[in-house]
């Protein structure tokens, strides 16, 4: 196929795509017009039904909690996959990077980066914890909180060395925290079944005040477990990749 033929083929395809796309656009509802009833219904009843003022979390962890379980396990399985693929292979061994190029001086991390990272670790931890534990009152949740929590561990790596990072987040403990998070979510659902309710039914007392941190029953609890799982999964993935980059060498 010559270049000219290829170009014509592309142009024909692009024109067809553009035609269908524009045709599809004309059928869309107007900007800002929401046709379906579900969103309006949820907006009206969610706070009264769950005592959670973070309606997004109420949807995620209650109305469609079953979907969220599956989503959480996608991340869980992905983390397992990464640590399986990136395990130490037979042809590799662990070695620090120092003797890779003898005589070449590796520039040390600058003091500015170290100080900034150290300063940010505390606020990042608090922020992550806040996000993970306030799903019921704000548009946050365990997912975002977990990633922010994991970021504070990455800051620790920036401020120090990989070995410090590894010592603070040992693989066994990270694995265990992740497993507790993933299992906790499922266990809450099964507890509801044990009480004679449908899977993931909100069986805890909802509290008397909508918008209080202690309100919303299982929504807050599920968000907490999701935070644990997501944080651990990200720390695990990043530490596996760092190990690949910094420690593992081909046996030569």
């Amino acid at each position, binding site marked *: 196929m010559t270049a000219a033929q290829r170009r014509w083929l592309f142009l024909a395809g692009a024109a067809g795509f553009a035609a269908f796309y524009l045709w599809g656009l004309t059928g869309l509802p107007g900007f800002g017009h929401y046709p379906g009833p579900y969103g309006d219904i949820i907006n009206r009843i969610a706070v009264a039904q769950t005592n959670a*003022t973070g309606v997004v979390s109420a949807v995620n962890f209650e109305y469609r909690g079953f979907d969220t379980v599956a989503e959480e396990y996608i991340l869980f399985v992905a983390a397992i996959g990464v640590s399986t693929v990136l395990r130490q292979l037979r042809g590799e061994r662990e070695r620090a990077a120092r003797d890779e190029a003898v005589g070449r001086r590796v520039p040390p991390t600058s003091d500015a980066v170290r100080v900034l990272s150290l300063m940010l670790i505390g606020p990042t931890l608090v922020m992550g914890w806040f*996000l993970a534990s306030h799903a019921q009152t704000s*548009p946050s*949740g365990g997912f*975002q909180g977990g*990633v922010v929590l994991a*970021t504070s561990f*990455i800051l620790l790596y920036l401020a120090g060395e990989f070995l410090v990072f590894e010592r603070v987040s040992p693989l066994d403990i990270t694995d265990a925290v992740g497993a507790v998070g993933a299992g906790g979510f499922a266990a809450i659902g099964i507890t509801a079944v044990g009480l004679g309710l449908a899977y993931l039914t909100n069986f805890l007392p909802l509290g008397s005040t909508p918008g209080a941190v202690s309100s919303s029953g299982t929504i807050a609890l599920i968000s907490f477990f999701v935070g644990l799982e997501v944080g651990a999964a990200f720390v695990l993935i990043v530490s596996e*990749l760092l190990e690949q*980059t910094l420690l593992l060498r081909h046996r030569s």
Partner: protein
Amino acid sequence: MNVVAVAAPPPVPLALMDVLQITLLVLVGAGATAVALIRSPVRQVIALSAYGLLLALLFLAFQAPDVTLSELCIGAVALPILLLLALAKVRRREE
């Protein structure tokens, strides 16, 4: 406290919001094009991170603060970190 105070957000003139949304849409389009056009992988990752930040702002302007938070975490932070680490590994093997 028995009364839940739900503070109404201060009214923003509609035209101002439209301008903000359109500006951000244009910026996101430009950012996506930039990410696709940049050839050097490391620079591409940095541009991708900035693009994630732009997308987060866009979601905020369209009143989706929860998606904003997710996009900030994943698009602007987590994804670039993973890509940079992968690039570092590939580069080391090539040396």
